[in-house]
C-alpha cells in the first residue's frame, strides 16, 4: 500500500477555507439555536396553553426527523413551495437551526426546572417581579447548569454541519469530497480531514468541561 498525501498538501488552502466555512456555519448555528431554543423553551414553559402544545409538538417532531431530511427538504422542497431559492449556506443555517434549537429548548427547560423552587421564593420575598426573578436568579443559574449540555450542542452542531455537504455547502466535508474525487486519493484525503475534525471537536468539548468544573459551584443552590 502506498500513500500519497500530495492531494492534501497541494489543496491545503482550498481545504482550510472549507474548515473556515465549517466553523462559521457552526458558530452561526449555535448562536441562532441558543437564542431560538431559549425562546421556544420559555414559550413552552410560560406561554399560553395553545402555544405550549404547538411548541411541544414542534420539539418532539424535530427529535423524530433526521437532520438530513430537514436539510434536503429546506433546500430542495421549500423553494418549490415558496418560489424563493436560498443559497446552500443559508439553507443549511436555517435547517440546522430549526433542528438544533429543538434540542436546545429541551436543555433550557431542564436547566430552568432544575433550579429549586426556594430560589424563586427568595427572589419574590425581596419584592422582585416574576420577570426579574427569571432573568436575575433562575436563568443565570440555569445557564451554568446547562454548560455541559451546551458543550454537547456545540459538538453536535460541528458534526452536523458536515451533513450540509449533501446540499453542496462548500464546507470542509464537501471540499474533501471534491478533492478526493478529482485526485482519486480518498483514503489520504478522508483520513486527513477525519483527524482535522477530531482536533477541532475533542479540545472544544474538553474546554467546556473544564470551564464547567470551574464555575459549577455558582449554579448549585
Amino acid at each position, binding site marked *: 500500500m502506498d500513500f500519497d498525501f500530495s492531494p492534501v498538501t497541494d489543496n491545503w488552502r482550498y481545504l482550510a477555507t472549507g474548515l473556515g466555512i465549517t466553523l462559521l456555519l457552526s458558530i452561526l448555528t449555535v448562536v441562532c439555536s441558543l437564542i431560538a431554543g431559549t425562546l421556544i423553551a420559555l414559550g413552552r414553559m410560560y406561554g399560553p396553553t395553545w402555544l405550549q402544545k404547538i411548541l411541544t409538538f414542534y420539539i418532539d417532531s424535530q427529535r423524530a426527523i433526521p437532520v438530513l431530511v430537514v436539510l434536503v427538504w429546506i433546500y430542495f422542497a421549500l423553494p418549490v413551495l415558496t418560489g424563493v431559492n436560498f443559497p446552500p449556506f443559508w439553507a443549511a443555517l436555517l435547517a440546522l437551526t430549526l433542528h438544533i434549537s429543538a434540542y436546545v429548548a429541551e436543555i433550557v427547560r431542564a436547566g430552568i426546572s432544575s433550579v*429549586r423552587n*426556594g*430560589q424563586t*421564593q*427568595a427572589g*419574590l*420575598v*425581596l*419584592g*422582585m*417581579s416574576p420577570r*426579574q426573578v427569571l432573568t*436575575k*436568579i433562575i436563568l*443565570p*443559574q440555569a445557564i*451554568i447548569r446547562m454548560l455541559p449540555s451546551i458543550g454537547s450542542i456545540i459538538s453536535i452542531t460541528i458534526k452536523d454541519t458536515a451533513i450540509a455537504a449533501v446540499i453542496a455547502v462548500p464546507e470542509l466535508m464537501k471540499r474533501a469530497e471534491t478533492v478526493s474525487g478529482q485526485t482519486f486519493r480518498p483514503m489520504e484525503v478522508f483520513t486527513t480531514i477525519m483527524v482535522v475534525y477530531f482536533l477541532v471537536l475533542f479540545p472544544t468539548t474538553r474546554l467546556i468541561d473544564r470551564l464547567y468544573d470551574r464555575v459549577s*459551584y*455558582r*449554579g*448549585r*443552590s
Partner: protein
Amino acid sequence: MSNVTEADFGRKNASSTPVVEYRDVRKQYGNFTALDGVSARVNRGEVLCLIGPSGSGKSTLLRTTNALEVIDGGQLYFDGHPLPSSKAEIRKVRQRMGMVFQSFELFPHKTVLENITIGPLTVLGISEAEANARARVLLEKVGLTDKADRYPANLSGGQQQRVAIARALAMEPEVMLFDEPTSALDPETIGEVLNVMKRLADEGMTMVVVTHEMSFARRVADWVVVFDHGKIVEQGPPAQIFDAPREDRTRNFLSHLGWNG
C-alpha cells in the same frame, strides 16, 4: 382598628397599630385545613415565636404574612391595612418585610456582597455605591466582613444563614419573618445565627420566628404562640407558656420536646 383585648394587655406597644394582624385566617389545601381560623397580632418591636408540632401550620401562617400563600378566609393586616391583592401592591408589601428560609436560599451565582445588594439594586433602585455601603454595614453586623467576595458554596451553613439575614435586612424591612432558620444547621453553628437574631431583637426589630429552639423562644420572645392542627392552642408571654402553661396540649408538646423549664 387595633382592638386590644384583655389578653393583649401589657404587651409591648399594645395600644398602637400592630405591624401584622391575623383575623380568623383560614387556609385549605384541597380538603385539608392547614389554618383553621387563626387570630393573632404582632406589635411593633415585638419578637413573636411560633411553636408547635410538625405539620401544625406554623410555616403556612408565616407564608401567608407576605402572600407566598394566599388565604382562603379571614383577614390579614399589615401596618393597619388589609393585605392587597394586586400583584404590584403585594410586591410593595414584600419589600417592607424580610424573610429568612430554613434552607438559606442564597443565590449561588452571586457573591456574598451581591446577594445582599441584589434586592436594593433591582427593587429599590438605589445606587450601587449606596447599596454596597449598606451591605458592608450589614456584613459587619452579622460578623462576615471578610467574606464579602466569597460565593455561597464556600461558606458554612451558619455563615450562609447570616448572609441570608443580611440580605433580608438590606431592604430595611419593618418586620422580619424567620422559618426555622437553624433547623438545617450543624449544631456548632446554630449559636452564631441565634446570636445575630438576638442582637436584632435587642435593637427593636419586629420579628416573627417559627422555631424548634425552645431556649431561644424562652429567652428572646416577647410573645409565644402555640400551634396545633392549624389552630392556636394558647398564646402568652414566655413565662406563661414555658413555666405555667394553661393548656394540656401545650404541656404535652413541651414535654415531648423534653422541655422541663
